């Protein structure tokens, strides 16, 4: 069973995306902000994290930085989810260490492909 951690503040998107991912037979853990996302990641060690960028309490950038700093979470691949299509965001995501980047509205098929690719990469380095 592949476990995914979805960190998303918007309830509708969280619900919609988690349901679609569960249909694809993934186990989906949920977090509503960066801080909670970091806690869940430490606690449950998911195979992959889907991280929204714009969030209250702790945003995606900060959470990402924390996760990549800790030994037990730094190996977990992270896909950034953002409504921002700006190039600067893409640059920033690449630089900080997001493993992939998915612009909203999410192309679900492409997202699943990316998830599978990253998980495959992680288990067969």
């Amino acid at each position, binding site marked *: 069973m592949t476990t995914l951690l979805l960190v998303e503040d*918007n309830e*509708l*998107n969280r619900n*919609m*995306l988690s*349901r*679609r991912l569960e*249909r694809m037979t993934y186990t989906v853990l949920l977090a509503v902000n960066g801080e909670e996302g970091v806690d869940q990641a430490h606690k449950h060690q998911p195979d992959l994290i889907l991280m929204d960028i*714009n969030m209250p309490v702790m945003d995606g950038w900060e959470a990402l930085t924390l996760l990549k700093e800790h030994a037990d979470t730094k190996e977990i691949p992270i896909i950034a989810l953002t*409504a*921002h*299509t*700006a*190039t*600067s965001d*893409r*640059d920033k995501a690449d630089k900080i260490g997001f493993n992939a980047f998915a612009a*909203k*509205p*999410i192309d*679900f098929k492409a997202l699943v492909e990316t998830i599978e690719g990253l998980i495959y990469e992680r288990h067969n380095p």
Partner: protein
Amino acid sequence: MSDLPTGLTFRLRTLPIRSKLALVTLLVMLALIALPSLSLYRDASIRDMNQTRFAILSLDRMLLDLQKNQNDFINLFETKYLDEFSSTFETFVESTENLKEQFWDLELPINTLEQLVVLTSDYQYLFEVIAEQKILIGQNSSNGIRHKINLDLQDIEKILSQMPKAGLMRQSLQTELINLQLPVQRIKARQQGPQMETFDQHFATLAQLAKDRIADTTLREAFLSAISRYRQNVRDLNTATKKVGLTYDDGINGEISVIVNAAHLILDRLNTEVNAAIDRREGRMNTLLSVMAAFFLFAFVLAVIMLSRSISNPIRDVTSIMTRLADGDLTFDIPDQPRRDEIGDMFRALRVFKMGAIIRQRTQIALRTAHDELENRVDERTRELSEEVHERRLTEKQLLHAREDAESANHAKSQFLANMSHELRTPLNAIIGYAEMLQEDAQDLGNEVFVDDLEKIHTAGRHLLGIISGILDLSKIEAGHIDIYVEKFAVQDVIDTVADTAQPLITKNNNTLIIDIHDNIGSMDSDITRLRQILLNFISNAAKFTENGSITLAAWREEKDTGDTVVFSVADEGIGMNEEQLQSVFNPFTQADVSTTRKYGGTGLGLTINREFARHLGGEIKVESIVDQGTTFTVFLPAKAPLQSYTGEA
């Protein structure tokens, strides 16, 4: 000067100053010559007078010499004294004559000197008388009366010797004879006293004795005769001696003494007179000198005063005129001096100077006026400029504020739009997501009606998302917040991706996509996302307005010295545009007309965004169109995009 003829006064006054100075110098020189000359003359004259005085003194001395000669002659009875007396007397007379001439020359009173002459001739006469008497008397027993007396005594002695030695008679006679000789000796020695009376007494005694005692008549008579002769000669001697004078105060001696004393007195008087004359002369000369000196001094002072008045007064006038001229006072008249000298020249020069000064002053006033005017203008202009500068600064500040306001407003707008689009997109994402999910569910369940409707919701959502994205992009472009991410990529790859992505749009209106890529297309450094967006926009537009036709996407490379240009063109066979429509094709929210929007949909933002993107990538877009035949959009992009060279339209 007032009694001088006016012509002379005029001439003197108007003589050049140098001539006046020369005249004064002449006066001074005259004084310098005259006063010493007069002084010399005075000294010479006094010297002459002193000589006269010396001559008088020498006369006095000569008079003493004469007396000495006289005494020597009387006492020593040598003829040389007589000669000396004569020669001295001659000298004396000569000197007197000279003195007389000097007196004449010196204008001294001559009568005293005449008295002296008279006295000296008296003296001469008396001296001759004395000399006569002296010769008469004789100096010793060898001559004169004294010789006779001696002879008489010898005769008496001879007679006595003839008398008998025995007896008293001869002895008493001889005794009485000796007694008789005593007063004679005294007379010879010029002793004072009644020598003759004593002699006569002794003579009477002797004569009586002889009468009484000499018995021999012959002898007696001879003796008596001898002693009578003797008595006569003694009487003569006495008379002569007395005539000469026993002392210097009696007889001729006395007379001579009186004369000599008178002569001495006269000489003293003469001396006094000459001294007085010298004093007088000296005084007169001194007075004359003083008067002359005073005259010269007066003349000099007068000349200097006149000169100074004739020079300094006009110079003072000139100075005061010059001072007034220097003070810039040109309102007074300079008197016209009819003078031929330097002062006249100065006045004439001053008149010329004043004329010049007037001209200068006028020029200066004109200059100053011009200067003041200029200065005023400069001041005014400076004030204006400073006001302008102030206004401009104010405007600048206002503009700056306005710009800051505008920028902050724009920023706020961008922020607002970004936030809004995020806020809009989040629910839209949910809508699209749920629509997709339900579509999948419906397909799984085989409910075709739901699938179709859910597809419509999905499409509408996507469309709305496109509009929102367009607005966001445009707002970012307008705010200058467009990000260009330049990377190297193969042009072929971009075209492939675009063709894939656009395929559904192409097939929608039953169109075909023709791709025409030249072989040398290669790669380029640009923003792949923007390029993709540009091409998709063109193709989506072309597909929208074309039905049952073909859309051609062409790409080629134009090589240039300044750098290669990659050209993409999208040509359709759609409805086309007229000139008017072409003019506004790139304006935002503009389509051919309102009906077009209803018929074809679209946001009308695509071309505007495309042009902005192309410009940001250093390129340009051109459009060609023929109504009812089709439109071709061409984008020229540099193979190497400049980094943020374009900051968007103002």
